[in-house]
């Protein structure tokens, strides 16, 4: 038998219909939906008199526009309110499970999927959201789709797809202290560029990836889309199985043991062929900070803001020039000299327990700097929030001058009231630093949770490796 990659194995087991020269029909095991990209899909179904084929495989949550403050207060944003009502009505009529904003399991769609065990190895998972790649951390084929495809999956539980090319990303060696999963993925994107993975599905491997917790693997897979690949995956192993055991939607008892036996087969064969390969050495990776207006505009915390003339390509020069102008940065400025106005620790990239624990460990007994106007902690889910509170993390953060909020997308996208004001600069643990992403004319620097916490305490970026307190950081 020809050796296969993990991607090919999952693909092959989901083909409903294949015809040479045509895209295949593949089956979708889990469909996640949220208020932002689903209303038009349900409206489309209704217009055609079609039904949701598998409400039991469809899961809905409110996350993008929800308030992170008191949810018992009336919703003032009327457009958001109408979207919540539409999702509620669509779920009620079709029998789709809904985690509404008052559910104790509510959270960001890519956080609650794994947290509740909806996400399981070997599945195909889609959602009308590009960061669906997150779920690949469990050895699933998971990718973002547009609203027309959401409608297609609702109606058929299938998608029409062509096979992607495969990309192997290996990070060898051990992560130095203070260097996190976020730094690995930012360094990868810095190397491949934001379109380097286009047309590919990535599989991550190497010691530095294998040694990550599930939370860390999710951070890496989450930002795969920022490197252009639609999906990223890590083959499941004992870390994966241990994470899943006992979660609400995961099989129990004997069924769990049987599932683990199946899941163990989910890995690329030793000699399987990948279309492209990228390799990095973890020892050479420093904490990363973005300086520009896309996630590929990234550098080490020890470096300086680049000069447009550092780039050979004319388009890159122009892009750098316009990014520096937008960001209000001067070429040659040391990264550690950049002052920060607001700090956001949250988003589907970095709002899980590992992230909050690492940040809390670092800020314990300290206080945010005077120039910091706001430092927000937004847990990715209410489940995470509850657990963090049990561990007393909320108190550590509050004592240090952070605001402790309810779960949602929040300042990652600024669709609720958590908006970064014009010309203000954030240290943010989210995944996108596009123009206007966190608020019109706002300036985003993407960093890891410890780097964000350290920036909050210092008032500017600092190299966390130079600090004593980071020894225990994941």
């Amino acid at each position, binding site marked *: 038998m020809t050796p296969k990659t993990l991607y090919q194995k999952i693909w092959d087991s989901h083909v409903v*219909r294949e015809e040479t020269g045509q895209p295949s029909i593949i*089956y979708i095991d889990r469909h996640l939906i949220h208020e932002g*990209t689903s209303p*038009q899909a349900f409206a489309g179904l209704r217009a055609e008199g079609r039904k949701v084929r598998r409400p039991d495989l469809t899961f809905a949550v409110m996350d993008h526009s929800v308030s992170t403050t008191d949810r018992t207060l009336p919703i003032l944003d009327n457009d958001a309110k109408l979207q919540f009502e539409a999702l*509620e009505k669509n779920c009620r009529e079709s029998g789709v499970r809904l985690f509404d904003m008052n559910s104790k399991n509510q959270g960001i769609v890519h956080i609650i999927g794994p947290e509740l065990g909806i996400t399981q190895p070997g599945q195909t998972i889609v959602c009308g959201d590009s960061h669906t790649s997150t779920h690949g951390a469990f050895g699933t084929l998971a990718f973002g789709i*547009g609203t027309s495809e959401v409608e297609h999956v609702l109606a058929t539980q299938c998608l029409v797809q062509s096979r992607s090319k495969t990309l192997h990303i290996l990070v060898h060696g051990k992560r130095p202290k203070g260097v996190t999963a976020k730094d690995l993925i930012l360094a990868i994107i810095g190397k491949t560029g934001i379109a380097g993975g286009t047309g590919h599905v990535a599989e991550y491997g190497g010691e530095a990836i294998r040694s990550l917790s599930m939370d860390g693997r999710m951070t890496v897979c989450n930002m795969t889309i920022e490197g252009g690949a639609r999906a990223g995956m890590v083959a499941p192993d004992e870390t994966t199985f241990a994470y899943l055991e006992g979660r609400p939607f995961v099989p129990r008892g004997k069924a769990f043991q049987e599932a683990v036996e199946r899941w163990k087969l989910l890995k690329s064969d030793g000699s399987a062929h990948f279309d492209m390969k990228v390799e990095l050495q973890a020892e050479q990776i420093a904490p990363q900070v973005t300086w520009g207006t896309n996630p590929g505009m990234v550098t080490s915390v020890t470096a300086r803001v680049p000069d447009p003339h550092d780039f050979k390509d004319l388009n890159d020069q122009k*892009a750098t020039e316009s990014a520096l102008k937008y960001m209000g940065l001067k070429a040659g400025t040391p990264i550690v000299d950049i002052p920060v106005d607001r700090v956001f620790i949250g988003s589907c990239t970095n709002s899980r327990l590992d992230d909050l624990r690492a940040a809390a460990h670092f800020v314990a007994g300290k206080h945010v700097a005077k120039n910091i106007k706001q430092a927000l902690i937004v847990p990715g889910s209410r489940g995470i929030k509850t657990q963090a509170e049990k561990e007393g993390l909320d108190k550590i953060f509050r004592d240090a001058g952070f605001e402790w909020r309810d779960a949602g997308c929040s300042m990652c996208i600024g669709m609720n009231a958590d908006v970064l004001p014009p010309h203000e600069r954030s240290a943010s643990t989210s995944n996108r630093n596009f123009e*206007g992403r966190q608020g019109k004319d706002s300036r985003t620097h993407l960093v890891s949770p410890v780097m964000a916490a350290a920036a909050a305490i210092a008032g500017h970026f600092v190299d966390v490796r130079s600090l004593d307190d980071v020894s225990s950081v994941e």
Partner: protein
Amino acid sequence: MQPFSAHTGMVMPLDRVNVDTDQMVPKQFLKALTREGFGRILFYDWRYLPGEKPNPEFVLNFPRYKGASVLLARANFGCGSSREHAPWGVKDYGFRVIVAPSYADIFYNNCFKNGILPATLLEDQIEELFQRTDKEEGYSLTVNLPNQTIADKHGLMFKFEIAPSRKEVLLKGLDDIGTTLLHEPDITEYEKSHAASATMYDAVDVKYYSNGR
């Protein structure tokens, strides 16, 4: 969906690499419940100054490009968010064709669902088109999908590549869902033979789950 065969129209150049979908339709417009009306807000933050005054420095507001229906763009067009609001905006503004050296995967896919042709040319061909657009006011292109050609009236002609299945979808204006549902028996068969892998347990705190199908 509206079928696409050939189109002639004025070109508007967007001279910028890595244009992301956040720029096409910013987040404040993602709270809509319909697919309509996104043309007015396409490229909102670049296009408007405070008070929705047109920004005279943004190319979409140049009088010479009024009425353009071919969008000439640079590499990795449409990266970032999967929001289909972006192609809805492109279409609603009046663009039927995009011409660029490369596209991000999700955006590329979404174009086909909306009857927009995203044509791919080589970098130096794109460069040539940027120069011609700049030099000649009202520069227009004729895009012929069956022949896979892009031509101007001065004799320039480029061939472009497109997957045959994608081409067919546009030419026929196919309804994807309807096409897939023709294979309903295959789907049912798959579900029967894979029922075990769909095993699920009932959770916690959810609304509106009906066991029956």
